């Protein structure tokens, strides 16, 4: 029986294992050093905040793995010998594979800051980071202030986590406005306000110079490069992005760049070795996507795809239209298609913001053809299927606005803003778009 070994029990590896099991009888082993069972990394923050217990982050009950004949091995891979098809573990033992899937995910970036390895300095990615945070920031007596370095999605999550325990937070962001290499100005400014409204000390346009140690090798404070200001703190969170977690592969024959290099079939340069998820790097970026994508659902899709290839149905990884979502404190964010931070040459934009300053939408469309390119929506939920169809069928921005009521995905009885939005668009563009009433027929395509 062919033995499929998967390194990493995150969403990518586990999805691959599940689909291989559905399609075949192959022997499957998942190797992980992080946790006994698959858990949802995205939910670690809710464990710290007391919304959930760790066990709630596990999507499958513990009996699931044995019942589906998926072997779990807790071990740390030291290296891969691709000629003998063997994994060698730190613990001294080894494991032979017939096909290998590398799904080791990411690790937090460290940019060689002085003091970056002190006690009390951590990322927020692994289960161990959570345990570390629990140790150094259990409450606002032990941790009188925390400093977060790096303004991305994990940074703001960490800020929210600490804030939930009433720990004062200083949030250092290199950019001039939060996440503004991804978000356009309006949205970015909205999140700046949201962060500050929650009492988080947001510092924009600053860099970390060094992390200062106390006499016991624990963090005591940090220094800001631009101003030389020293901020006393007990915990430093490093959240300046992530990069592929592939150090143990660097010495092998498997080709790596930033991540493990793969083709569209998720195959590496070595036969029978595949890489999926955050740690995989496409030779050439797909559409407008980045070659390395550290996104939950792309990991899942790569797992679904590689399972097909391994089960003798070789197909290309084809991730479809871009979408994503996040939550910034109390503001939910969804995006479908592309809305770049900076307007591109052939693009036109439409921005609507609610008077509360907590909701907005931002449309991006082609200036000449009027084709809809994408939407950012904050504080209003929208239907994925609606926009997926729009993008596939290359509908116009007018069509989107006309059918905006179909797109709404907010809970029942919520106040609707479609009229406001369409009116504003009509005013600005001298158009006469009439909002259509929501139609279940269109939404569910029953006709």
């Amino acid at each position, binding site marked *: 029986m062919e033995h499929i070994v998967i390194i990493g029990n995150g*969403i990518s590896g586990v999805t691959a294992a599940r689909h291989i099991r*559905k*399609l075949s009888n192959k022997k499957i082993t998942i190797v992980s050093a992080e946790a006994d069972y698959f858990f*949802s990394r*995205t*939910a670690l923050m*809710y464990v710290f*905040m*007391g*919304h*959930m217990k760790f066990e*709630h*982050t*596990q*999507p499958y*009950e513990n009996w699931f793995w044995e019942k589906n004949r998926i072997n779990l091995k807790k071990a740390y891979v030291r290296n891969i010998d691709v000629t003998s098809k063997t994994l060698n573990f730190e613990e001294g033992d080894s494991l032979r594979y017939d096909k290998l899937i590398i799904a080791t995910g990411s690790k937090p970036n460290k940019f060689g800051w002085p003091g970056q390895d002190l006690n009390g300095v951590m990322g927020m990615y692994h289960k161990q980071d959570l345990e570390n945070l629990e140790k150094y920031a259990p409450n606002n007596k032990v941790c009188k202030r925390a400093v977060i370095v790096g303004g991305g999605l994990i940074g703001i999550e960490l800020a929210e986590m600490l804030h*939930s*325990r009433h720990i004062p937070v200083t949030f250092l962001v290199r950019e001039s406005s939060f996440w503004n290499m991804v978000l356009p100005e309006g949205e970015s400014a909205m999140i700046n306000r949201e962060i500050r*409204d*929650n009492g988080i000390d947001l510092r924009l346009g600053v860099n970390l110079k060094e992390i200062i140690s106390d006499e016991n090798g624990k963090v005591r404070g940090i220094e800001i490069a631009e101003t030389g200001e020293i901020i006393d703190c007990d915990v430093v969170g490093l959240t300046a992005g992530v990069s592929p977690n592939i150090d143990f592969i660097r010495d092998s024959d498997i080709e790596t760049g930033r991540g493990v290099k793969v083709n569209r079939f998720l195959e590496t340069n070595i036969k029978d070795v595949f890489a999926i998820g955050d740690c995989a790097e496409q030779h050439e970026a797909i559409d407008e996507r980045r070659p390395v994508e550290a996104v*939950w*659902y792309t990991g*899942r*899709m790569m797992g*679904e*795809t590689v399972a*097909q290839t391994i089960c003798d*149905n070789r*197909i*290309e990884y*084809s*991730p*479809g239209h871009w*979408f994503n*979502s*996040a*939550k910034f*404190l*109390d503001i*939910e964010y*969804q995006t479908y298609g592309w809305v770049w931070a900076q307007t591109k040459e052939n693009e036109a934009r439409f921005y609507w913001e609610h008077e509360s300053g907590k909701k907005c939408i931002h449309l991006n469309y082609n200036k000449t053809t009027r084709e809809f390119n994408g939407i950012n929506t904050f504080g209003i*939920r*929208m*239907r*994925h*299927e609606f926009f*997926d169809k729009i993008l596939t069928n290359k509908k116009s921005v007018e069509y989107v606005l006309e059918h905006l009521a179909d797109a709404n*995905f*907010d*809970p*029942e*009885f*919520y*106040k609707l803003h479609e009229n406001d939005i369409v009116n504003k668009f009509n005013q600005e563009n001298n158009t006469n778009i009439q909002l259509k009433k929501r139609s*279940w*027929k269109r*939404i*569910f*395509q*029953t006709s």
Partner: protein
Amino acid sequence: MKKIQNIGLSLFLIGLAIFTSLIFLGKYEITTDLLENIVTNKGIKSDLFISDIKNNVVGKEFTNPFSFSSKITSALETANATHKQNNEWDKVIWDKPHSFSYEIAKSAGSGIIKEHKGAFWWLTFGLGILGALLFIIPNVITLGPPGIKNNGIWFNKATNRGWIGWFVFVFLVGFYLLLYFRPDYIVNWTYIVDPISESISGNTASQWFVYGFLYCIVMTVMAVRMYIKYRHNKYQVLRTTSVLFFQIVFAFLIPEILVRFEKPWYDFKNAFPLDYDFFYSWNLDQLITSGGLGLFILIWGIILTLVIVPIMVYFFGKRWYCSWVCGCGGLAETLGDPYRQLSDKSVKAWKLERWLVHTVLMFALVMTGFTLYAYFSGVQDVLGLKTQTIQDIYGLLIGSIFAGVIGTGFYPIFGNRVWCRFGCPLAAYMGIIQRFKSRFRITTNGGQCISCGNCSTYCEQGIDVRAYAQKGENIIRASCVGCGICSAVCPRGVLKLENGPEKGRINPTDILLGNNVDLMDLVNQK
């Protein structure tokens, strides 16, 4: 703010302590006049009982309900035993001992509580309400800006099955045991709501009036908590208002007012088979002899179950009842909301749920079938079983122990919908319709799910919502009561409760939206 909350908590606990201590207080004395009254009113023919009471109780003062109750119930039981032995069936007192003792205690009681009903109302209900509100209202500020704020729920000893949870569990179970099985111990509670009862129905309060009144108060106070916690979510606000309205007006005021006009006590929204004694012979007789209104109630009750319930479930799912109308649901969604995360999500629990809830439904239907057969044919036994015995077993096991003691008492341990999930026959009936013939579903928003598990954690019905959401599948579960909390706690806007066309409602899918290759097509082609 913390200070105000602490003061509130202290006041609440003082009120609760006084309320509890009332059980141990009071004076009970039967005078000769009173005994005569009782004997005439109840038509007591047992000379043994009368002489026993005369010799051992009359003229003596009891300072707590326990010794009083034990004298009365033992007198009754001894007398009954002798009468039964001697085949003196007309002398047997058929009342339940503690209900009988309750009726006597209600008129035999005296003392400070009965004399100062108003003052004690304020010391118990008053302090409790005031304290609870002082504890709850500062949440507007302490919880932070509107939004989902479940911070620390799993660290709190009250909501993570910690010692406070167990303490509340013991207290609630004790409360229900007293209410159902020892009403004579809680006579003092009835005194303090007498004035309210008299102003509504014209009668003094029974233990059931205490329960109904307390129910409304608890729901109202905890609804304030819901309004604050979910003030950003209009679905939750409207739903809370709806259950509160139906509890206060339909379950509490209208029935009591009906009594005032000498009509049968009836809760117009309580549908059979949840209202399991609707077809009992005494109820049918009462309705038939109550003129036009009685007849209307009879027809309404039947139409409610056979026509209105299924039609509404078809259009809106069972949520229209469970989360918008029902009293049990109302309590679960207000008092029970802090405990929703304690429901068991395992597949095992799901299996148990299906067995139990459908067994109760079958039990209720068979019992009602027997009852109706007996009613129309005039016999007492059906298939060798006394219908009375079956009714008694159902009333004790399902009506009292399951719905009350376990259903509410176990909130802090098993979550707030234990009864609704495992026991309610009406929920089982609606669940079957919801699963197979309804427009209701929870739509999953394409590929947006990140498997975080907030939805499953906060599902009071123990549905593993995430298992569906992460597959891009709609949630069509018989047990879903449509509370809408999964949608509220989802950080990525993945879930929406909606009523749409039946076609496409169930969408089994192996591959999520976003992956351009339709892998299922490929699988099917092979």
